[in-house]
């Protein structure tokens, strides 16, 4: 047990003096702040632990086991990374390469962006090469999947505009959710509102859906306020 074990230990309390501890709880309560932070910072399963800098950038990700020794190790990596960032900002290209690899490993850099930056950087060392290749492949896979999702959503938006919509309720839910997820990222208020309206009709007799739709209406208002 992480919370009843490591995080409750005296050893951890002593270690914690070296860092600022921030606890984020995903609650599914619409009114709670920063509920999107877990996904924004690359989380895809609980528990999820990372180090961030004061700007909120992920600088090191933690893996199991979550022991104080592992926290120390990741803290060392985070400190090294932050030193490298400073050097890279000062024009050190070797440091720039290490920063790029770390950013790829932390999911903070897209494959295309990384490839462009690599053109101006030195060749990786024997230690860096497998890290770079693996992290670049991870980023490429993610990018392909994102591109596929975007292509799918664009196709669905075309279908919606042409009033060609699914008749099966379960398929329709996925259809409209795919549109809403993509439209929200693109700040496409027209498609978002159209898909939301259809989902609201489908769940009109479900009182439990009110909170979900209220939150989506608020998100729509925010998008409209921000402009496209």
């Amino acid at each position, binding site marked *: 047990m992480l*919370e*009843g074990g490591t*995080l*409750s230990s005296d050893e*951890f*309390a002593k270690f*914690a003096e*070296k*860092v*600022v*501890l*921030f*606890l*984020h*709880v*995903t*609650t*599914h*309560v619409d009114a*709670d*702040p*920063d509920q999107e932070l*877990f996904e924004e*910072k690359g*989380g895809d399963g*609980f*528990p*999820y*632990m*990372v*180090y*961030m*800098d*004061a*700007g*909120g950038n992920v*600088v090191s990700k933690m893996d199991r086991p979550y022991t104080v020794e592992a*926290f120390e190790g990741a*803290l060392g990596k*985070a*400190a090294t990374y*932050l030193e490298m960032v400073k050097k890279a900002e000062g024009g050190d290209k070797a440091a720039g390469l290490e920063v790029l690899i770390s950013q790829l490993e932390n999911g903070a850099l897209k494959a295309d962006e990384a490839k462009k930056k690599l053109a101006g950087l030195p060749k990786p060392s024997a230690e860096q090469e497998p890290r770079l290749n693996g992290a670049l492949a991870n980023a490429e896979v993610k990018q392909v999947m994102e591109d596929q*999702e975007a292509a*799918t959503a664009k196709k*669905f938006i075309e279908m919606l505009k042409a009033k060609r919509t699914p008749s099966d309720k*379960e*398929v*329709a*839910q*996925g259809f409209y*959710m*795919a549109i809403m*997820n993509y439209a929200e990222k693109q700040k496409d208020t027209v498609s978002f509102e159209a898909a939301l309206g259809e989902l609201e009709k489908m*769940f009109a007799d*479900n009182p*439990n*859906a*009110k*909170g*979900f739709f209220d939150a989506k209406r608020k998100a729509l208002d925010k998008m409209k306020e921000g402009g496209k």
Partner: protein
Amino acid sequence: MTNRKLLPLAAALVAVLGARAIGGELEDKRDAKLKEAFIQKAGWVLDYTKAREEAKKAGKPILVYFTRSYSP
């Protein structure tokens, strides 16, 4: 996107709506989570902005623990 890919999206929606079915229980679960002893013991900050401000002021990195209260 095939049915196999669409259905999880539909299931996710139903799960979200299902979670709302328990209404105030979500707040109760959150409140119970925030009272857990480990939070007090090491002094976890619960506000994202405050955590970044403290990190900037102290020149320390932030260790972030993401957890959830809506299910065990």
